[in-house]
């Protein structure tokens, strides 16, 4: 009895483990090795929660390339200066002063890249925005984020599952993204 039980247990646990592995590998929500949840410290603790959440500044105010370019692009310092320029918002903060100094001296800020696609993947923000996708669908609720965090896996399967939805009418050619 015990012997059979142990035997059955072994067999079932092997089968179960295999199925779990297959599920894990094929399910696009459970991902391994895609930096999901990456949340690095930035050189300047810019708070999206404050800017996008509390002050409700539109994403595209700073990320200007979103509708036109492949790159949404991180704003240059002159965009910061639109509000934080001399005599404007937050004169006394150390960080703001640091930005102002950098701007005046023409130095750039080296931000940590959070959302990183491999070089062989061509992603264009424009059509996605055009198709009415909200920024949060991929980037998560940035308005709640003190620090930017990679919410989605950005794996190929993650891209494809959305492209496959018939209502999105999106191409699934290999050359849609790889060329």
């Amino acid at each position: 009895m015990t012997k059979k039980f142990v035997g059955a247990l072994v067999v079932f646990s092997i089968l179960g483990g295999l199925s779990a592995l297959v599920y894990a590998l094929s399910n696009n929500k459970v991902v391994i090795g895609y930096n999901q949840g990456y949340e690095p410290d930035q050189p300047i603790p810019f708070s999206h929660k404050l800017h996008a959440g509390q002050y409700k500044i539109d994403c595209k105010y700073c990320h200007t390339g979103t509708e036109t370019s492949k790159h949404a692009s991180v704003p240059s310092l002159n965009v910061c200066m639109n509000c934080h320029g001399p005599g404007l918002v937050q004169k006394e903060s150390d960080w703001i002063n640091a930005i102002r100094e950098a701007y005046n001296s023409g130095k750039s800020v080296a931000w940590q890249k959070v959302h990183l696609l491999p070089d062989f993947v061509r992603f264009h923000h424009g059509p996605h925005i055009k198709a009415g996708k909200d920024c949060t669908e991929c980037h998560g609720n940035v308005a709640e984020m003190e620090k930017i965090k990679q919410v989605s896996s950005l794996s190929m399967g993650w891209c494809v599952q959305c492209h496959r939805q018939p209502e999105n009418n999106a191409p699934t050619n290999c050359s849609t993204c790889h060329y």
Partner: protein
Amino acid sequence: MDIIEKGIQLLRSRGRKGIAGIWLDEHKLVEAARKTRQAGYTKFEAISPFPLHGIDEAMGIPFSFIPWITFIFGLAGFSFGVWFTWWTSAVDWPVIIGGKPMWSIPAFVPVMFELTILFGALSSVGALIFVCGLPKVDPPVIDPDLSSHKFALFVPEDDKGFNAANIEQLFREMGAVEVKRTEF
């Protein structure tokens, strides 16, 4: 370590007590087996270094059922091949390749065929291992030469109407060079 120990326990064979006769001539053994069977024993075993001609019939061993396993699993392999090539190529992500239809059956035949063979072969071996109770750790050995040039019959004690004296006598009559009480 515990698990390994348990695993070894699982694979350890539990010997049955019984009586064994040893022959040097396989033809005599086959005759002895026939006699033993005629004496009403059913659970006895013949041990030989190579498969013996006629022993199945002498011992009343039925035709092996393994071909059915092979057939069923071969069929399963084939069906899996059909389904898998169809599902991956035509359903899950159809891609235009060489202007061919998504489910290009002729091109998928080799895969279906190989899966048939693979499933059939592995299932047969699996079945063999299963029915022979393999693998076993240190199975009891009646005589080390039984895998070389000697032949043995073993009647376990729990066989119906086990009578050690009768068996020993039968074995001696049939030309056994040695009869001993042993475990197997």
